[in-house]
């Protein structure tokens, strides 16, 4: 049985697409057959982050409308054997998705894949609802600031009331907190909420903490999911995150201000 994981947040620009790409890639690296679906109809940037934008011929909406089949629309990753991307359409409007259509595609994908990662658009409108409706698990991406936390709380409310699992009285969606763009220095200065603050407010299990990192920007500019940059802090933090998602017990890193080494202190860091 395929596991459907939605990467969601309410707020835009917090790192959903970055995280979808990293987590999907990380799971596929472990040998699971994985597909990442871009639900952000009209914006389309998962394919950019995955570096496959030039290979998009058909998209999610084409498949729903029966204009193409899944085989034609799925893009096979060139780096990882078991990884596929189902891109969003850039030209359609965001109401092009229907619940029945999405369900049909997910069912079809579930026959072949182990993991289906749904990259949600921002907001709490139909597109975001569609992305979370069929989920078994949710990665709630949150930045350590008040408005992002508030929006995540809102999405958690939706997960527990507006999802298929909620409507059918099934066991609830498993919720994970992924704190991204974490900057320990700013936390110490009181400019950002701490891991503890956010954890206490949202009261769900912490899946990972991704530091604010130049590596993320470099990665997205070069069309490489950052998890492939395994020397970087963000890459390692995503590797830890994937391990926890697969049930492993991994200690948290990058939570505290790094003590600058002697050389760095002399030459500036």
């Amino acid at each position, binding site marked *: 049985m395929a596991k459907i994981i939605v990467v969601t947040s309410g707020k835009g620009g917090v790192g959903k697409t970055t995280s979808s790409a990293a987590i999907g890639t990380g799971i596929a690296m472990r040998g699971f057959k994985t597909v990442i679906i871009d639900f952000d109809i009209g914006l389309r940037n998962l394919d950019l982050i995955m570096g496959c934008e030039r290979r998009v011929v058909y998209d999610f909406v084409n498949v729903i409308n029966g204009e193409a089949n899944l085989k034609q629309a799925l893009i096979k990753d060139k780096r990882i054997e078991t990884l596929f991307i189902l891109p969003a359409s850039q030209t359609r409007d965001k109401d092009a998705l229907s619940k029945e259509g999405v369900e049909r595609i997910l069912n079809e994908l579930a026959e072949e894949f182990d993991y289906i990662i749904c990259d949600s658009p921002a907001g*709490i409108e139909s597109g975001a609802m569609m992305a979370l409706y069929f989920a078994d698990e949710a990665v709630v991406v949150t930045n350590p600031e008040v408005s992002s936390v*508030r*929006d995540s*709380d*809102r999405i*958690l*409310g*939706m997960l*527990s*009331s507006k999802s298929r699992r909620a409507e059918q009285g099934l066991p609830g969606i498993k919720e994970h907190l992924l704190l991204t763009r974490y900057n320990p220095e700013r936390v110490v200065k009181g400019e950002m909420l701490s891991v503890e603050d956010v954890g206490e*407010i949202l*009261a769900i299990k912490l899946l990972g903490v991704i530091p604010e990192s130049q590596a993320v920007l470099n990665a997205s500019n070069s069309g490489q999911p950052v998890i492939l940059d395994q020397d970087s802090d963000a890459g390692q933090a995503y590797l830890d995150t994937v391990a926890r998602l697969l049930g492993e017990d991994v200690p948290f890193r990058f939570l505290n201000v790094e003590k600058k080494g002697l050389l760095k202190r002399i030459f500036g860091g």
Partner: protein
Amino acid sequence: MSDHSFELKGSLFPLSVLYCQDLSAAAVKTQLQQKLAQAPAFFYRAPVVINVESVTQVPDFEAIAQVFKELELVLVGVCGASAELKKMAQAAGLASLQLSKSKTPAKESKEKEVKTEAAVAAPVMETKVVEQNIRSGQQIYAKGADLVIRGTVGAGAEVIADGNIHIYGTLRGKAIAGAAGDNQKRVFCHKLEAELISIAGSYWLSDSLQGEYWGKSACIGLQDDKLVLADLL
């Protein structure tokens, strides 16, 4: 052989009863509109029974039913009706409910009433228990009941009860107790960080709550129209 797919059973439900001397459609409308303005969410599609015991003129039930419809209320029937009024109510498609004798010292009606077990408009104070966190944007309303939240009420969330409210987690959102007007109701919470607390229509914003009890457990009630915070224990 019994057929469980079709059963008719007696049950008790809390219903709002409207007492209004002047039952002209216009008067009913103004009165209802005023009530609704105070708390639109509470009365939205609420079932209502009209007490017609003390009406002086013969009401036009059809017109009244129309007013209820316009205001998105559900007129269920009448109570305390004379035999004549009962017939008229019936003609307008309304039920005739029997007043529970203990609650209302109504004058004995002359005709013999048939005793039924069914639907008596009795106010039952119950407790609604919610076993989860209430998230931003969510609203919980315990109508005619106390409300217990075994979780946290997030900022931007709202919990409302006609009775008392007990929150075992942190109260960061809004809590509205005694929503039907009872000023004896209170809010109890494990950790007070509320945006707003209201009791029987009086309310306080977070600014006026940020004293000794902020971030601690507390019990909040009204005394002579003044907000009183006290230790939970």
